[in-house]
Each structure stands twice: as structure tokens, then as C-alpha cells.
């Protein structure tokens, strides 16, 4: 979990989408592979546009990809 309290399901969604690689996802959402690694490790909280791009790519809602811990 990141300092912001944000967790995500990117790794799970990636594997559910044909076990796509981090590089493939990075190319699809226009970021570097290092950013995908940092996101999955919870070391980086993405901007809203990036969060939306990732959610759109997986065809799910943003809340299904990112969760803010400590919130009901």
C-alpha cells in the first residue's frame, strides 16, 4: 500500500487479460514499465488521467482498479 493509502488490482487485471506483460500495459496506457512496476508495488499513486486510462483499458470502473483504504 502506498503512503496515500491507495491499493490497486493492476497485477490481477493484467493476468486476467491474457497474462499481459508490464511492458504491454505500459505501452497501452502511455507510461514507462518502471511506472507500472511502481504502481503494482504500491509505491506510486497515479494521476487521475492515468487512473482513468488504466481503468478504460481494462474496461472496468476506476474504483475496481484502485481502492482507497480506510474508506467505507
Amino acid at each position, binding site marked *: 500500500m502506498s503512503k496515500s493509502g491507495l491499493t490497486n488490482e493492476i497485477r490481477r487485471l493484467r493476468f486476467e487479460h491474457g497474462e499481459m506483460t508490464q511492458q504491454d500495459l505500459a505501452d497501452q496506457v502511455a507510461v514507462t514499465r*518502471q511506472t507500472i512496476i511502481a504502481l503494482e508495488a504500491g509505491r506510486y499513486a497515479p494521476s487521475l488521467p492515468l487512473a482513468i486510462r488504466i481503468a478504460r483499458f481494462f474496461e472496468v470502473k476506476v474504483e475496481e482498479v484502485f481502492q482507497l483504504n480506510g474508506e467505507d
Partner: protein
Amino acid sequence: MSAQQKHAWFNLVVAGMAILAYFALWPLIGPWRAMGAFGLLGFAGFNAFFYLKGKKSGRVVSDERDQAICAKAHTVAWSVIWVSIIAAFLVALRFFGEDGSIPIRGLGMFLWWSFCAFLVVQSLATLILYARR
């Protein structure tokens, strides 16, 4: 390793070489003429090549995370430079007095060391931020 990390390592090496060359030349030609060693800092301009390779491959070379880290490293480096400028003014005031004047070569020396310090601090901050984020 991202292009920004390579960039930071390269700048660190260039700044380190310039400092080493300065202290190597000092006993031979004196502290003022040894400032020529800081000309090596010009090699820092070659770091653009780290971005060209990635661009050719069509992949993203720099994204929002890289830009955030870069901005933070810049802020840290500028803070250090501002503190060093204030410190230099205070030291100059102490040495030359209120009615004194600063030698032009002293100004040159200050600018070179400031530029060198900027490169070192910015590069170190970049590398530390990448390791932490």
C-alpha cells in the same frame, strides 16, 4: 534503468570528473587557472542521447512519474543553490567588507562550483527519489 536515471548517473560522473580534474590541476597551474577543468561539465549536454534511443523504439521515455521526480529533484537542487548563494554573500561580506569588491575570477569560481553542486545534488536527489518511489 530509466532514461532519467541514466541521465542522473551520467551527470554525476561528469561532475565528479570535473571536480577531480580541478583538484588534479590545482597543484600544477594554481586554483584559478584550474577552473578550466570545469569545462568538462559541457559533456553534461550529451545526456540527450539517453532519450533518443527510447524515442526511436516508439516507447514512452518519460511519463508523469518521471516528471514528478524530476521536478522534485530540481526543487531540492535549487534550494541548495539558494542557500549556497546566501552563504557566499555572507562569506564575501566577511572577507571583503561592506565597501570591498569581489574579484571577477572569484565570481567565476563561485558560478562553476554552483553549477557543479547543482548537477551533483539534482542527480543524487533523482537517484534517491527513484529508489524510494
